[in-house]
């Protein structure tokens, strides 16, 4: 019998919802249960547990890892704005249609092709060891500088492509609307096209920046003692891999909230500018 005030359809939907929650819960419990029960049965579990999930080593190294992570954040913080600006510049260069600026377009296209095609780690090694090899004196031989430059070079090519996709996704009618009002093509780009393009590409852009946050650790290969390097030092000191797990946890503590925050921003923006939300 249906409850008073609840239609047959609503009752059905509620039942349906309860059922799917129940199914999701049960399957999760079973999977986790199996992992917890079976993994310790493996012959090497005892050793793995001691060398990767060692609480003692973790508590002794964690604070050191955290303070090394500050370096990663610093590198990220000065790279990110440079990447945004340079990436946007490249994207705009590639979207310019004036024949006189064709060389600029060509340069931007070649640039993105080259740096998207080289693994980040190679760019870091080549720039990080190559440029200081020119015999630059302090502070211009710092691996921080050239490691960061390498990250900016590589990531701006990804970000430029994301921006360019955003620019091209804005419908031609927007340009017509703006030009018909007498806005110049530069004003149209600045006030009409770019603001819409940037809003659209925030989610893919965030992906790139979460990747950047992680790839900062690659700079450790050319010298700086940031979290990955610190974890390596601790690993050798304790003859134990737990510091790597600690480093992974620290990365997650930052990157997961980052992505959730952007999701939140996007939802808010959508709600603000659109009339109704489709389920």
């Amino acid at each position, binding site marked *: 019998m249906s409850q008073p005030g609840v239609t047959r359809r609503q009752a059905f939907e509620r039942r349906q919802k309860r059922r799917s929650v129940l199914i999701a819960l049960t399957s999760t419990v079973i999977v986790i249960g199996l992992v917890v029960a079976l993994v310790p049965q493996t012959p090497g579990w005892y050793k793995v547990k001691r060398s990767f999930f060692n609480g003692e080593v973790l508590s002794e190294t964690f604070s050191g890892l955290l303070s090394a992570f500050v370096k990663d954040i610093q590198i990220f913080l000065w790279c990110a704005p440079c990447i945004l600006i340079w990436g946007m510049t490249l994207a705009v260069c590639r979207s310019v249609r004036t024949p006189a600026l064709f060389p600029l377009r060509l340069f931007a296209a070649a640039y993105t092709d080259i740096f998207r095609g080289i693994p980040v780690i190679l760019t870091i090694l080549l720039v990080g060891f190559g440029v200081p090899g020119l015999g630059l004196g302090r502070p211009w031989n710092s691996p921080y500088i050239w490691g960061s430059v390498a990250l900016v070079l590589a990531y701006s090519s990804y970000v430029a492509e994301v921006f360019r996709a955003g620019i091209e996704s804005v419908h031609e*009618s*927007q340009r*017509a*609307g*703006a*030009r*018909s*009002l*007498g*806005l*110049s093509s530069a*004003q149209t780009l600045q*006030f*009409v096209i770019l*603001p*819409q393009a940037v*809003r659209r590409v925030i989610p893919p852009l965030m992906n790139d920046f979460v990747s950047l946050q992680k790839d900062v650790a690659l700079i450790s290969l050319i010298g700086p003692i940031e979290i990955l390097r610190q974890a390596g030092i601790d690993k050798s000191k304790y003859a134990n891999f737990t510091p790597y797990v600690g480093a992974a946890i620290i990365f997650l503590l930052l990157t997961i909230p980052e992505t959730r925050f952007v999701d939140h921003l996007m939802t808010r923006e959508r709600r*603000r*500018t*659109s*009339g109704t939300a489709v389920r």
Partner: protein
Amino acid sequence: MSPEMTAKISLQDVRKSFGARHVLNGINLDVKPSEVIAFIGSSGSGKSTLLRCINLLETIDDGAILLDGIDISEPGINPDPYRRRIGMVFQNFNLFPHMTVLENIALAPRKVLGQSKKEANDHARELIARLGLSDRADGYPDQLSGGQQQRVAIARSLAMNPEVMLLDEITSALDPELVGEVLDVVRELKSNGMTMLLATHEMGFAREISDRVCFLHQGQVLECAPPSEFFSQPKHERTQQFLQRVTDAGRL
């Protein structure tokens, strides 16, 4: 006086092709100040292309488009100063979705005419009030009905104080019950003496508002006459056929 001297807009043998397709095949027309011209014709007859050419959104292949006797279709000319004087309203509104109604209207006056923010906003609010949208000033286009969006688009054009308005099937994307509110605005523009060229499928409206109705067929103006004459005694056989089809479809 020569016709160029009195005409607000003069189209002289305007031609335009997209590849092998000849969309405009030599259009000749003089539009007097404060005159309202309605272009009718089937889809693909070149109405929209003609309006886009007059707004210099499309370059023409041959002929000339004169605004107050000045050839604005001259190759290599900077179109921006002339676009300011010719407003255009599109079938799909083309409002900027990331800006509020007020910002949509005030953008061009600020950036193109160099008005201060206050000046532009005050003028925009006047226009918004005139078009009955005062409670919507701070809303975004997606939060408005189609009729309201189209009125905002008209206000956005009017904010530049244009001398000529080009209306490209501005009611075609609207629900029938929203058409009226937009047409009211066009009536008001006519009573204020605005020179207008409109492409439309609303025959009743074309008859009511225009000084001359022009029938476009395969990129040519086949017939141009005051509405009373045009609808009762169409001269050209094609025009008769077109009007017959429209009547059969119950659109007249």
